[in-house]
């Protein structure tokens, strides 16, 4: 047993020495490291704000609604989701605007969608048969684009709640856009509550 006691003592000494040396080198590298922020400012342009502008046909009666999440994905929930109030049995001419308002100056993403129209498409869906939406604009190949549309609201007497959902798709290439199918990856998908009154 004495030899093992000796060995243990020796072992302890060797270990303590090496542990001390190692800890000096390891823990010496200060934890202040953690204070350095190193988030890249991405060139990828995210959309923070979607604005719909609708004008009732034959009037200058303009409705503008905004859906906005300034801090991007996660964090706080969207800071603004307007309800779209429209009149029944009316034809509206509408447009959509995509912006990144987290950047200064504000970046207008609509222009990029327009520039690469052949690789983009906006889809709309109106729930509860509250209206019929038709895309009016076309891309360079004659396929629908979706930045401009007409919306004919239904004839109702009671205020029925519904929703208008808008999805922006960015296709890998021109060839994967066919005018009817969405892309595999959704860029923007927002829902505005819609009430006819």
């Amino acid at each position, binding site marked *: 047993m004495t030899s093992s006691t000796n*060995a243990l003592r020796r072992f302890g000494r060797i270990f303590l020495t090496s542990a001390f040396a190692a800890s000096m080198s390891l823990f010496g590298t200060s*934890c202040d490291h*953690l204070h350095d922020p*190193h988030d890249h400012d991405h060139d990828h342009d995210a959309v923070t704000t979607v604005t719909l502008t609708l004008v009732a046909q034959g009037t200058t009666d303009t409705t503008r609604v905004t859906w906005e999440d300034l801090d*991007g994905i996660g*964090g706080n929930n969207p800071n603004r989701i307007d309800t779209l109030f429209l009149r029944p049995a009316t034809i509206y001419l509408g447009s959509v605007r995509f912006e990144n308002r987290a950047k200064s100056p504000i970046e207008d993403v609509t222009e990029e969608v327009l520039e690469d129209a052949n690789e983009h498409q906006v889809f709309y869906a109106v729930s509860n048969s509250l209206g019929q939406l038709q895309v009016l604009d076309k891309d360079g190949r004659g396929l629908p684009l979706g930045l401009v549309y007409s919306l004919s609201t239904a004839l109702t007497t009671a205020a029925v709640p519904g929703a208008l959902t808008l999805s922006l798709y960015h296709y890998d290439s021109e060839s994967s856009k066919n005018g009817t199918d969405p892309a595999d990856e*959704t860029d923007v*998908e927002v829902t505005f509550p819609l009430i006819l009154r």
Partner: protein
Amino acid sequence: MIATLLLLSVLADTHIHGIVRDSATRAPLHGAVVRLDGTKKGAVADRYGAFHFYDLHQDTVRLVVSYIGYATERVVVPLGEGRKEVRLDIQMRSSSARQQEIQVTDERIAHSALPTQQARVLGSVEIDEHRGQTFADALTQVAGVTVLQTGPSLKKPMINGLTGTRLVLRNNNLVQEGQQWGIEHAPEIDAFSPSRITVVKGPAAVMFGPNAMGGVIDVESRPIRKDPGLHGEATVNLFSNGRQGAVGAFLETAQVAGAPVALRLQGSTRLGGDAEAPDYVLNNTGVRELNASLTVEVGDERLGLSTLASIFSTTLGIFSGAHIGNATDMLRAIQRGHPSSTRPFSYDIGNPRQEITHTMISAKGHAQLSDDERLVLTLGHQVNDRSEFDGHNVRIRGQGTDPVIRAADSLARLQRALATPAMNLVLNTSSLDASLEHALSERVRGTVGISSMWQLNERSGSVILIPDYRLWGIGAFAYESIMLDEVTVSAGIRYDVRDLKSRIINRATREATLQDRTWQNVSASLGALWAPVEGLTLTWNAASSWRPPQVNELYSNDVHHGSAYYEIGDSSLASERTLGSDVGLRYEANGLLIESSAFINRIGDYIMALPDPANPTVTIRGTFPTYRFTQMTARLFGGDLSLTVPLHERLNLYGQASFVRGDNLDLNEPLLFIPADRGRIGLHLHADDVGPVHDAYVDVSVMGVRRQDRVVPGRDYAEPPAGYLRTDLSVGGVLTLPFGLPARLTLACTNLFNAAYREYLSQYRYFADDLGRNIILRFTTTF
């Protein structure tokens, strides 16, 4: 050969038993065959080199002891009159004659398991014959081991339903420290480097710290050959699926310029294109890998130092059909049932993709302080650099009023964006371990030690799944085994402290705060092994260990792409505490081998992300289900059975089956990602010589996997896939090349009938079928 004979007092029966060891290293030779000459009786040495014979009636017993890589030994034991107990110590010399065949010459005792634990060792031939595209492929031969996969080149091993940070993966003496928290993060290990893999099923926290609560996978390279001259090995693997090729080689010498410095230089490379399901190409699933390592060993068994420097680098494509934007896309992809568009086969790897480099330096020194004491010090440093490139939102607008300048600027920005990772994580880990292996008496052996680690993670990019953090941990342990004649008892205890300091970014305000958390706790284990009759071993283990919450469980705050849910950590989580027990049985006689085990594991404060349906995450990209990390009481239990039945001298029938049940006891519902019940049955035909081919074999097997029906209805986006059958075939043997070089050749075909199936544990099951037929040619030569 030295055979020590001890004639003991007269006992009830004549009982010959003993230990077979290497004469130089005194390491037990697990698997050595001891035959009673002139009879049909035989025994195989167990993990401790031990063998037993009972009820012998001859006057004189002649034993023939053989083992691959060693000269066959003969021992004559005079028994004479009366019944006796005879104990033998058989020491075998490594055969200096060059082996004609490439065989395992390396069967050191498993240092990664207590003697009583459920452990399975895969040797170099087994690894070689089953080597796939990742190191984990070879592991699935072990009953109870499955893989959680994200495509063919991204596989995480799972033991008895536990994976990720609940397992410890050791790579050449160091605990592999990569980003193990993610489902799509595979261990960074070269498929060519292991020559021995030990799988420990069950808690091993006492030896390897809190994360080993589910088990250990210990990957080792073979020791450098000690015979003079320059040696080496070259391996080529070709895979038809993905048109993948891989080449690995090493060169080694036991002496450099006459000095006793052993060197090995190893390298490998792999190039694969898109994998193919039976009916379509899985676009962007290619892989590129380049690995190298240098081993330098000085000294001898008594005092020595072994250093290893290695680099693993890979670029992996993430299946483009599995990269979706939001929950609507996910449902649409599932409804469609197949990828929306498939391009022709290509070797190109585009976004999304991962680029990972893992660099490791280790130095392991040992000193034999006395006959009974051996000191081992291991110092290591690892750098894991992981970049994940996203496929989303690459819509870049250039600056400038002139359209030409703007177009050029757009292109430049696009290229920059594609080359900028959405997430980059650099994880630095230093570790120092010291252990003293000792023999307190002839029958009591054990190890005491201290292990410490320090880690720094630096994150950059827009994705916030884990923060910057600094982690240190220190632990002290002791375990001892008492070896009696028929019974071995092991017990161990360990104490660990972990301290985590993280810099957390608030997503709304973009402000960072620091949080410091410390955990400490005790792990303990107790086990027994009983060998009542020849060939039969029974084991029992009980262990309690803990695991501190991991950094993603505490601070994750982002969308999980590929699974389309928003995952939120909980910074107040407490440690998990597990209490588990397992029993095992091993019986081997006349070629019949039965191995079976069963386990139960109760984990208090088990950490898992559960849905929070009241608070979906609303984003401009759509609405995502919110999952929050929470704690519950979980219970896992299961069992497995493997058996080999000799139908004929040359024909074996083998089979294995395993099942695992996992439940959240608080909510009384099944856990997520528990492997479905599975089994395999096969025939193995073996011949010593067929023409010029030695050791020829034909092996055919069918794997059957049941549908995982234990899920929470409606919880997942898609119901679990149907059960499936997969047939694999392989033929192989050893040929002699010119200059007397031996070459092991294997031609294998997995998914022989090109069946379309989906595996519940695959992340791609929502989007596409699993791999179709894959014809594999493997070639290895040693010189």
